[in-house]
């Protein structure tokens, strides 16, 4: 009654399985081009980045390991280390509180002038460190605006720890805010609104909901902030009195040693800072690798 269709699949003839041409994607360069470009890039990086780093350690150990440790145990060096740590220990938490506060205000609310505020927060980045020191000299210096009043009351800001702290706070001002603002913008306000709807107060919401969300971005910002705080030179140089053992941070101490031709001692102290830099880079890379989802999009590799 009806036509039946009965087919089976036709198998193709078996051809030898050899790739016809090199398995390159269409969109890449010839191998020799790739290798040359890679070599040039790596040479550039090695020459400009790695060589100076290596030089620090080599020069530090040039006169032997003992001299190295002697330089570090020198009382002026220890005082410099202490001052550096103090400055960072004050500046970083202050900027942390500021960064969180600014990020909260900017990312959880809408208001006019928001982009202006963000630009203003970025200002310290575009100011030369020397100018950063200058502005505080203008205020607190003996010929400055508040200078006479301060010397009357015996308060020392410049050429003393407070001035150094202030300059450090200025140059590291935007770091944490800059990390948190894009991150919290991406995260939006949904989680906070959910918490509030469930009855949490503002503070509870912040501690239990927001903070866990931003903890890695916060760590990242603190890391960069700290690295800059400990390594700042220009701004601190202006406001410090360069008084050995008293108003010298580690970078300033390096300068003094260097200017006195105590090269290996200078490099010894510098090597501590270099190690700090390497540690910073290491943690930074680890954060970008392991927790890239919890950093802002600009940080993901």
């Amino acid at each position, binding site marked *: 009654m009806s036509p039946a269709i009965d087919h089976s699949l036709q198998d193709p003839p078996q051809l030898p399985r050899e790739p016809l041409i090199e398995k390159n994607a*269409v*969109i890449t360069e010839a191998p020799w*081009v790739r290798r040359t470009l*890679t070599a040039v890039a*790596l040479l*550039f990086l090695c020459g400009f980045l790695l*060589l*100076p*780093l290596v*030089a*620090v350690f080599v*020069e530090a150990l040039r006169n032997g390991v003992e001299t190295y440790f002697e330089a570090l145990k020198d009382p002026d060096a220890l005082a410099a280390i202490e001052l550096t740590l103090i400055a960072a220990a004050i500046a970083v938490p202050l900027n942390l*509180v*500021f960064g969180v*506060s600014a990020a909260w*205000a900017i990312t959880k*609310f*809408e*208001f006019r002038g928001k982009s202006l*505020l963000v630009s203003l*927060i970025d*200002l310290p980045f*575009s*100011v*030369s*460190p*020397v*100018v950063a020191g*200058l*502005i505080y*000299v*203008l*205020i607190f210096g003996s*010929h400055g*605006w508040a200078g006479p009043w301060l010397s009357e009351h015996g308060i020392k800001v410049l050429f003393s720890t407070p001035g150094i702290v*202030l300059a450090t706070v*200025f140059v590291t*001002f935007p770091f944490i805010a800059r990390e948190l603002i894009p991150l919290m913008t991406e995260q939006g*306000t949904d989680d906070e609104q959910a918490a509030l709807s469930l009855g949490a*107060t*503002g503070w509870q*919401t912040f501690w239990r909901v927001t903070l866990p969300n931003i903890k890695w971005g916060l760590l990242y910002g603190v890391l*960069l902030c700290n690295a800059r705080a400990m*390594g*700042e*030179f*220009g701004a601190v140089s202006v406001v410090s009195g360069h008084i050995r053992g008293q108003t010298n941070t*580690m*970078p300033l101490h390096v*300068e003094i040693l*260097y200017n006195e031709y105590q*090269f290996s001692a*200078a490099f010894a102290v*510098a090597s501590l*800072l270099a190690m700090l*830099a390497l540690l*910073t*880079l290491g943690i930074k*890379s680890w954060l970008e690798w392991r927790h890239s989802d919890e950093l802002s999009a*600009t940080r993901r590799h």
Partner: protein
Amino acid sequence: MTSAAPTTRARALRPRSAIPGFGLTLGFTLLYLSLIVLIPLAGVFLKSASLGWEGIWHVVSSPRVVAALKLSFGAALIGAGINAVFGTLVAWVFVRYQFPGKRFFDAAIDLPFALPTAVAGIALTALYAPNGWIGQYLEPLGIKVAYSPLGVIVACTFISLPFVVRTVQPVLEEAEKELEEAAASLGANRWQTITRVILPTVLPALITGFTLAFARAVGEYGSIIFIAGNLPMVSEIAPLLIIIKLEEFDYAGATAVAAAMLVLSFLLLLVINGLQIWTRSRRNRK
């Protein structure tokens, strides 16, 4: 009769929000910002205003200041330019190719961000001084790097290296494969595809990176003063001149130079941003 509770200033600024803390956080933010940044910065302009236009001009146009400004800005521009070329190359290699140790080198690119400037300064000097690691080979060739403007350029290149790489890298990573395939299918060879299709998309990011690199290098102090030589009129950078004037208690002079730096940077940034906007407006009118 009780009076109604006064509305706070915060609520007048924006509509009601379910999330608390606006007044507190914005208030603290503005206070901190003003105290630490705005008021001190305003001081610079106030102080230089006290000199008057003539006074400022007198300081700024003196030969030593002019030379210092030329050096700071010139070296920064050249350093940023070098990084524009090599930084793009580095970004390309890292995004498109595989090679051993890639992760290590990728992390290393951020070294100038993390390394204290003084450390960089003495390290660069150790390399390029006449008896230095590299300098010793260049000296007989008559090339003097340390203690000359060339050294300043080298330091500027070091300090601004990551800026171009890190702004160009993400743009290259997002480049669409299909665009390159389309160009190839239309008959373009690799070089044509790169120059006509890929690089134009990268150009805005490149300009941004160049701008950031320049802005960073122009105000740089710590990594330059060791290698620069600091001879007035020859290898003296503007920030150093500011410090010298401060040590001489010439606050006004120092401020004038600082103000000149700020204004010049601002103008240059305007020009570069204008360029940026011009290249962007040609395409994305969404």
